[in-house]
């Protein structure tokens, strides 16, 4: 988020003249539209907005947003973003990455940009597959994923992007999925957060990992398997008939039934976006026994990296004149006469 003068745009203003090159039916389209819908709502200025991405289907995103865009190399978008933001903190930087780009080759940069708390929005499109390279399993693929590189099924234990982000020190964590109504709301919250805002977006790769998220995104499964979190509200799902509570014995979360809306006596936790311990538990809840936690899971800002760096730079410059001649002549000198 930036202290910028907001300007008025429409969705159309954010469309480029480039043909969109995703497979028909790809979840990326919905995400693109959500972003193009959200940008006017937050008063973003195309001239001050930069989309930075790595490589992958998802990373084609910048070509389709009428702003500044940098489609870089595989996995390194956070590093480019860091250079951009430290050079011009006025720019509103959106980082677009995929589960391969951001969690496989780029895992280290994802960690460090989060740790340093660069003020930017990090949108990780998690389709649990390598789309662009034609369907190999990714670090987020579930065990048993059959793919060209794992014809007998993958054996690696999948990474949890939100858990990884928290482990890296994230101060903002949110989750949504491509066609979810609330994606725009999540994006706005991320943008409003000062610092690195990490958003995992489940995205349907209809070609290589079709409907992988149906168990909670399909209409029939939504109510019973989506836990939308709202700060200050109890953690209820299934139309308020179930909730999440803490098991006092095991000190772990559990699903409880809520009778007649009396969530208090069921011990349902009230969502506090600043509670880091609960955030850890929420992002690690095993799906199946538990619903999928969605929305803003954690939001507790700290000073941003560019504030600190540029603040220190400013301090170092205070009262100093940039006299190159003097700089060159620093240290012990002597004069040779004519």
């Amino acid at each position: 988020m930036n202290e910028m003068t907001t300007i008025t745009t429409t969705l159309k203003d954010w469309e480029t003249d480039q043909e969109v090159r995703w497979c028909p039916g790809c979840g990326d389209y919905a995400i693109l539209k959500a972003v193009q819908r959200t940008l006017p709502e937050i008063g973003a200025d195309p001239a001050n907005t930069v989309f930075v991405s790595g490589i992958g289907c998802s990373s084609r995103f910048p070509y389709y947003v009428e702003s500044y865009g940098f489609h870089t190399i595989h996995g390194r978008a956070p590093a480019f973003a860091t250079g951009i933001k430290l050079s011009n903190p006025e720019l509103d930087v959106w980082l677009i990455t995929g589960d391969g780009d951001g969690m496989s080759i780029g895992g280290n940069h994802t960690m460090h940009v989060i740790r340093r708390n660069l003020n930017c929005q990090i949108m990780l499109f998690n389709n649990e597959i390598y789309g662009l390279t034609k369907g190999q399993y990714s670090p987020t693929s579930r065990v048993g994923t059959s793919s060209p590189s794992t014809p007998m099924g993958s054996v690696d234990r999948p990474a949890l992007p939100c858990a990884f982000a928290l482990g890296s020190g994230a101060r903002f964590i949110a989750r949504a999925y491509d066609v979810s109504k609330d994606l725009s709301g999540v994006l706005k919250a991320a943008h409003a957060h000062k610092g690195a805002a990490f958003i995992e977006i489940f995205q349907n790769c209809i070609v290589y990992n079709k409907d992988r998220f149906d168990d909670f995104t399909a209409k029939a499964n939504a109510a019973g398997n989506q836990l939308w979190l709202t700060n200050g509200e109890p953690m209820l799902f299934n139309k308020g008939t179930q909730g999440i509570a803490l098991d006092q014995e095991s000190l772990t979360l559990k699903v409880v039934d809520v009778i007649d809306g009396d969530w208090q006596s069921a011990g349902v936790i009230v969502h506090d976006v600043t509670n880091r311990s609960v955030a850890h538990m929420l992002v690690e809840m095993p799906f199946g026994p538990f619903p999928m936690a969605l929305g803003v899971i954690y939001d507790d800002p700290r000073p941003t990296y560019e504030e600190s760096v540029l603040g220190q730079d400013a301090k170092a410059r205070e009262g100093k004149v940039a006299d190159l001649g003097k700089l060159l002549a620093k240290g012990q000198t002597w004069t040779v006469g004519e």
Partner: protein
Amino acid sequence: MASSVAAADTAPITHTDAPEAVVVRFAGDSGDGMQLTGGQFTLSTALAGNDLATFPDFPAEIRAPQGTLFGVSAFQINFGSTDISTAGDAPDVLVAMNPAALKTNVEALKPGGLIIADTGEFTKRNLEKAKYDSNPIEDGSLSKWDLLAFDISALTIEAVKPFGLGNKEALRCKNMWTLGLALWMFDRDRQPIVDWLNSKFAKKPEIAEANIAALNAGHAYGETAEIAGPLRKLHLDPVQQTPGLYRTITGAEAVSLGLVAGAQLAGLQMFFGGYPITPASAILHNLTKMKEFGVTTFQAEDEIAAICSAIGASYAGHLGVTSSSGPGIALKGEAMGLAVMTELPLVIVNSQRGGPSTGLPTKTEQSDLYQAIYGRNGDTPLPVIAARSPSDAFECAIEACRIAVQFMTPVMLLTDGYIGNAAEPWKVPDPNDYDPFPAKFLTEKNGPDDTLLPYKRDGHGVRPWIKPGTPGLMHRIGGIEKAIDTGNLDYAPTTHQAQTDARKAKVDGVANAVPLQDVSLGNTSGKLAVVGWGSTFGPIHQAVRRARAKGMDVSHIHVRHVWPLPRNLGDLLRSYKKILVPEMNTGQFKTVLRDQFLVDAQPLNKVSGQPFAIAEIEAAIAAFFDNIPDNEGGEVEPNRSQLPSVKAENQ
């Protein structure tokens, strides 16, 4: 190398009794403060008006166990009343603070040279650690040198007694005692060192005083000359120097200052993304102290992030700079390709060290030239500039910034461990003497019908630089091949061919924007050209000077712009009968010359982690003339221009 090389050439080599130059090597345990001693002696030398060059040589270990062979740290200085451009071949004087220092350094000493040794450290245990079976000071094994062995440790403890230091702290003053002696030997003023000690230990005055006492004691020791024999006072006249303000400078300092100057001349803020690695870290350390010049430094998580952040900064309108040495540069290759493809300015500094792999991190080498010129996937040309000496690194850094900004291209600047750490006197330049090259940013659409053409090239094939944040100029760039002018994704065969050609033509065209190749020493044609690049300048220069003095028709050409090569270089090289290319690698620049000009460049390679000795190149030149059937090059005479040892002078 303060005076101009041309002048040096014309100056006759005088065979008087006073030495033109002297080489002193201080060697001790890493903990003995030899680099500090060397540094202060260097300063004193500079203040005395001698020309000089230094070569610090320290172990890879942070603090190797005391007394071990691999824990020896050495500092060599060559100084004199004439033009000096190397740290010298064999030392005339070796100061050995312990047995390990003696063992690892004495073989380098000139026959008849002087050893000063601290007997206090020649204990049984230290002798064992140095793998000496018997005490060399006593067993006569040093007889081909002059030996001056006495208990510096005890003398130091004695000298600093008044200040109530513990034994360990007292012994820390040994290096100042030794320095005091050295100052006496070469007739130097102690005051600057005293001032320096007082300011360094401002908060611990007793330490300052103890060190000063040791310094004075060492000096007095020479003065009172308790020992007869080899110890003689020697005065070297100041060298003829262009009048002006001088300081000493190391290559790492010079690169840092040159980058700052370059950014200033371009009117840009500088963003430096780095990751620590020996011997490149010093540039990061230096720049982070220059924030007032619009410098932001960023210690990234690795070299890849370092270069990517720098490219991001260039994209955002700053001058992006990154720096590393071999292994780190290897990691940056992929990102360099993106910078070539997106045509953004970027300076990449490689402070080369011994390779392959981790190799010899603290040693010097020139073995990353292949990597610099050829080491990327795809047809990915970029200009490469090589600095020849510490002070030259300043000019080269400015040149790298200029080319990067004017041609919207990444530029590689090569230095090495030797240049980075070595010091030489430097006539402080006046920033106003440099032509500014202000960066231009596009502020309005540049195409017909109110269109933006981010890849529209100018007459030099250069695309515009467009800063995000500029209203109305929104556009997208990336690493995929792009259409002419618009820069939109385009895989068409004709496009790829055209853009490949355009990128190549642009970089080739840099040759039109750099000076023609000159001849450093000698004639523009002749029997033999010795062609070098980078830090071999000094030894080649001296070797050619000596050979010419003996009448050999040999010239020295030193190439700064190693890619693209100066446009007259081919013709120039073809005007010599033979070409010799000394390099601290297995023959990399030789490949470039043979490829580009089809000239029979012959390699002279040294890959030992040590700079060339003048004599090594001299021998190669001599061998060349020996091999000419009718000896057209002239007889190779006994090498009278070789510097006489101190002893010879004194006897």
